[in-house]
């Protein structure tokens, strides 16, 4: 089984040390967060939203086979 590639943006790239990170496959976004907080404890202090297949999800959401996942800190464009 392949793992998941998580895109990260903004200040989260400082914590992850890159624009993306690879983690083992999990079933839903809550499990993903638990995994990420264990791997990158500093993430716990940061505000961010999770996007699954380019949609921001607020509730725990299943992560399907071909899901693309992104962590989005508060926006600061313009």
């Amino acid at each position, binding site marked *: 089984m392949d793992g998941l590639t998580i895109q990260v943006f903004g*200040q989260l790239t400082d914590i992850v040390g890159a624009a993306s990170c690879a983690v083992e496959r999990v079933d839903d976004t809550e499990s993903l967060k638990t995994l990420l907080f264990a791997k990158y404890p500093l993430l716990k202090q940061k505000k961010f939203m999770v996007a699954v297949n380019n949609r921001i999800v607020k509730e725990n959401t299943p992560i399907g086979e071909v899901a693309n996942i*992104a962590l989005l800190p508060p*926006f600061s*464009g*313009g």
Partner: protein
Amino acid sequence: MKERKIKNIFLQGAIDPGFIAGSIAKHSTKTDIGGHSIFLGQVRADVIEDKQVSAIEYTAHEEMALARMAEIREDIFAKYPLTCMHVYHSLGSVNAGEICLFVFTSSAHRKAAIDSCEETVERIKAELPVWGKEIFSDNSYQWKENR
């Protein structure tokens, strides 16, 4: 989900005043327009703890940003009687004093052009997944926060 026409809004680097002039000039054939409203965002050389911002580096989740911009565009056109709307946002490095955002609305009468331009700017700032990294003159940085 409705099918929306996705237009690219991202330009690499600063937005040149000549580009803005070209965009204005193209509207001279649309003789039902009576008023244009334009907002330009310019990178400020803010001083933060004795260090001066020399540039902002912009990154975006481009696919999500363009999809959201298409929704905003659809909402604004549904709400205001506009002739047209153009939006451009920089990616990559934009120096202090340069233009990083260009929002341009046109309508038969000024009120719709002015109100829709302001609303579009507010929504872009609040809703587009874009991030600015403020680069100081000593090459250190901090992540920009919108207020």
